[in-house]
Structures are given as structure tokens and as C-alpha cells.
């Protein structure tokens, strides 16, 4: 059509402008800032080269390593948990049973609860003395826990609270499951195979693209956990839940060391990029695309 380029740019200009103003611009600015000692309360800002990065990795900043460790631990626990449980729940929701849509609503509903409210509910559920979880555990004779208040249980507890909100991931899995052609299962019926061989030879290979998508999104999201740290634990006890972005926020906004915090941000960016790349690369050997075989 005539003047396609002009109109194309005109229509997309808000988005392009938004990208330049709110993504690319700030990205470059943050890289530059990370090479300075910018601090709101310091009269002068000077260029310090890679000093911030040296300070990060030089071992001087113990909290950096702590926050890195805590966050990796969180990601390592949360990503498999989210993927496995979401997939299992989606399998259940994909059964042909009465009340299917009600179950689906129940599973999805928690994911729309505001983070602050969800945090508050879980704080109360996991209250060591009066919470429901410990009462239920002791009622059936199981050991109780201090959950969010003990150094070695705080990260798993935060993982637990976030599992309440997996509804979105479940629904994406469900969409992947409903997309599998029925004939494939019928073939297994003919061969006399049961539900296990269906799961093993059809369902799992056919949803690998969905597993791939959900894994990437969950990794990216988990590395950026913030609200839970801010509201539930404030990084405690003894910095055992000092999640990376929480530490970044504290450094940049509470301690106003914005130059240093920008370096923190870039390190996080590179970490996320690296892991996303790893998953992308590995996908060649386990993600199955219909029509293209493994690609």
C-alpha cells in the first residue's frame, strides 16, 4: 500500500518512543551511572570506572554475595516447584470431569490477589504460634516450623507463599494440553498402552514448548522477587532472605547509593540473560516442535 512506511511508523510511534524513553534510554543511563559514584547526598559525582564492579566482586561487599546466594537458592527451589506443580495441576484440570470450570477458577483466583494482601494472608497462615499451618501440622502429629522467622526455613517458606499464585502458569499449561490432537492418544489405546505411556510418549513431548516458555518466564520472574522480601521478611532473619532486588532497592533508595545500585542492576541483567540463554540453548535437545521435529 502507499506510504506504508510513514503510516507504519506513525502508528507504532508511541511504542517506539516509549521504548526509547523508558527502556533504551534508562538502560544506557544505568550503565553510565554504574560507572560513577552517584549518591543523592554527595555534592559531587565523579566517574570511577569499574570501581563499583570491583567493589561488588572484590569480596568487600558481603551482602552482595549473600543476596546472590539467597536469590539463587530461591530460583533453584522455585522454578522446578512451579513447573512441576503447575504441570501436575494442569493435568488434573485437563481431565474430563464435572465442574471443570469451577476448579479452574479456584486454581486461577489466587494469582490475582494483590501481593501485599497475599503476603499478609501468608504471614498470618504461617504465624508460628497461632497460624493455621502449624496448628494443622501439630493436630496430625507432624513437626511444626518457624517458617518465615527461622534462618534455614525462610527461603523455602517464601517459595511456598508464591506457589499459591501459580494460576497463570497452570492456565498456559492447560492451553498446551488442550492443543494436543486426540488421535495421538487413540493410537496408544490401539496399542493397548495405559495412562502412563500416554503421559510419557505423547503428553510430555507435546507440551515441551509450553514447558520451555513457562520455564523462561518463571526464571526471569524468580530472579526479580521483591515484594515478598519487602513485605514478608524485610530481608531477615539475619539477611537470610535478602533477595537481590530487595538489596538493590535498599542500596539505591534507602542508602541512596544509586551509582553502586546501578552496577547491581547490570549484574542482575547479565545473570538473567545468561540463564535465559542457557535454557534457549538447551531447548534444542528437549523441546519438540510439531512439523519441524526437534529444532
Amino acid at each position: 500500500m502507499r506510504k506504508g512506511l510513514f503510516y507504519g511508523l506513525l502508528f507504532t510511534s508511541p511504542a517506539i518512543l516509549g521504548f526509547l524513553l523508558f527502556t533504551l534510554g534508562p538502560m544506557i543511563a544505568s550503565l553510565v551511572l554504574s560507572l560513577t559514584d552517584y549518591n543523592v547526598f554527595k555534592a559531587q559525582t565523579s566517574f570511577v570506572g569499574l570501581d563499583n564492579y570491583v567493589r561488588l566482586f572484590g569480596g568487600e561487599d558481603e551482602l552482595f554475595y549473600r543476596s546472590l546466594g539467597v536469590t539463587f537458592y530461591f530460583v533453584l527451589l522455585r522454578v522446578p516447584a512451579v513447573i512441576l506443580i503447575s504441570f501436575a495441576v494442569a493435568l488434573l484440570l485437563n481431565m474430563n470431569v464435572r465442574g471443570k470450570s469451577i476448579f479452574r477458577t479456584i486454581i486461577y483466583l489466587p494469582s490475582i490477589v494483590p501481593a501485599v494482601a497475599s503476603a499478609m494472608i501468608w504471614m498470618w497462615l504461617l504465624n508460628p504460634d497461632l497460624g493455621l499451618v502449624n496448628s494443622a501440622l501439630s493436630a496430625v502429629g507432624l513437626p511444626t516450623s518457624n517458617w518465615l522467622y527461622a534462618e534455614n526455613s525462610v527461603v523455602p517458606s517464601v517459595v511456598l507463599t508464591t506457589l499459591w499464585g501459580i494460576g497463570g502458569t497452570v492456565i498456559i499449561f492447560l492451553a498446551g494440553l488442550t492443543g494436543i490432537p486426540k488421535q495421538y492418544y487413540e493410537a496408544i489405546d490401539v496399542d493397548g498402552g495405559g495412562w502412563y505411556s500416554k503421559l510419557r510418549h505423547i503428553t510430555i513431548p507435546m507440551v515441551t514448548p509450553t514447558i520451555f516458555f513457562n520455564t523462561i518466564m518463571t526464571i526471569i520472574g524468580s530472579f526479580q522477587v521483591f515484594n515478598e522480601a519487602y513485605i514478608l521478611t524485610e530481608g531477615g532473619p539475619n539477611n537470610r532472605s535478602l533477595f537481590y532486588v530487595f538489596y538493590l532497592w535498599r542500596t539505591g533508595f534507602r542508602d541512596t547509593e544509586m551509582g553502586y545500585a546501578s552496577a547491581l542492576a547490570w549484574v542482575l541483567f547479565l545473570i538473567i540473560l545468561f540463564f535465559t540463554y542457557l535454557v534457549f540453548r538447551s531447548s534444542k535437545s528437549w523441546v519438540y516442535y510439531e512439523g519441524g521435529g526437534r529444532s
Partner: protein
Amino acid sequence: MKTSQSVQVLGYLALLIVSALFMTPFVWLIRSSLMDLSQIFTMPPEWLPRPFQWGNFKKALTILPFGTYFLNTTIIVMGTLAGTVLTSTIAAFGFSRIQWKGRDLIFGILLSSMMLPAAVTLIPSFLGWQMLGFYDTYYPLIAPAFFGGGMFNIFLLRQFYLTIPRDFDEAAVVDGAGYFTIYFRIILPLSRSAVIVVALFTFLATWNDFMGPLIYLKSDSLFTLALGLQMFQGTYTAQWDLLMAASTAVVLPCVIVFLIGQRYFLEGITLTGLKG
């Protein structure tokens, strides 16, 4: 056949248990919001409030100016919704219904920004708004919505627009229609459900946003519900009756909006997930 039937029964049982687990926090929330403190602290826990303490809501919602917070949140949500719906539909149109050189390349670059952690742009964006004198105003929270309304929404709408047959546009062009007419008269009416999805997601994301208001707002009088609730928690740490009542009040609008728009939600997630 026997094993497949028992698998069904076991599956159904598992579904019931999982659903019960997912519902429990809601039940716990509501039951706590309607009890007085002494019953809340009874061990083992009781489920039915005796008597129902409806006064908890009144007390919780008047200790802090939740009315103001509600109004503030609504203002931010409305502004963000207007910006997002307007500009994301226009941009998605440009990325799907107009042929131009470099279109898919630019779209790809913009899409890749979804991978970027918000933390990277956080500090410079904050400094930028502060330099412009907009710290402690709603501008930093609303204005970005008028620049495309987020790549996620543009992506979702574009996926939808691509499913609309080209013939419609071509017929309109023969009739002498320009791109604006096609956008407004053909694409927008045909994509009503996708626009609703975008609006619903935007509503929830804005209503639930915590970090944005936390960073850009300083004055109590400008606070949103999420911030107000967090402040409430800091002050009334052990007042679980009031905390749960306030939480219920914050959660309720989300639940209502979700239940009304449920059908569109599930469609929308499917649309992004499948093509993702």
C-alpha cells in the same frame, strides 16, 4: 478399562484436595476478618466467627484513610487504562495490519525489552522523573502507559489482529478508506474481546502494583491501597482481625473484576502462552 477408571477417580480426588488447598487461604482470610481478637487467638483454631464482627471492617477502614487510598488507586488505574487501551491498540495495528520495511525487526527489538529486568531501568527512570519535578506525583505511574502501554499488551493484541482476514482491509481500501478508518471501523470493533483482556490485565497489574507507588510516592495523601495496606501492617502488627478485614477490602475489587471478566482472562492467557 478398570485401571483407567481408577486413575480417573484418583485424579478427581487429587483435584478436590488441590482445590481445597488453594481455597483455604481465602477462607482463613475471611474468617479472621470477621472474628474478634480473642476468638482469633483461640487454640485450636475455630472456623466460624461467633458472633460475626462486621465492625472490624468499619474499624479497619477508618483507622487509615482507605477511602482516599481507594480514590487514589482508582485515579491511577483509570489513567493507566486510558493510555494503555488507546496506544497499545494503535501500535499493535501498526505492527500487524500495515506493511512496512523494518516492521518485524523493530517489533522484535521492542519485544525483547520484555526480558529486561525492571531493576535495570528503575534508578535512571526515577532520577529522570525527579529531575522533571514529578516525584511524589502520579505522572511517573500513569504517563508511561500512554507510550504503547507495555509490550505484553501490544504483543497480545498483535497476535489477535493477525488472525483477522486481510480481505476486510482490502475491501475497505477499495472503498477509499485510510488506515485510521480501518483501525477504527474494522479492527477495533472486531477485536473487542482482546481489548477487554488487555484492559482487565492492566486493571489488575495497576491495582496490585506495589513497587511503583513505593518508589514514586512520598505523601500519605497520595498513597494507593497497596501502599496503605502495607503501612497498616507496619502499624498494627498483631491486630490480625483488622489486618485481615483491610486485606479483604483490598482483595475484593480484584475478585469481582476477575469473576466478571473470567471468560476473557482465560482466553487472553491462552493467546499469549500458545504463541509465546
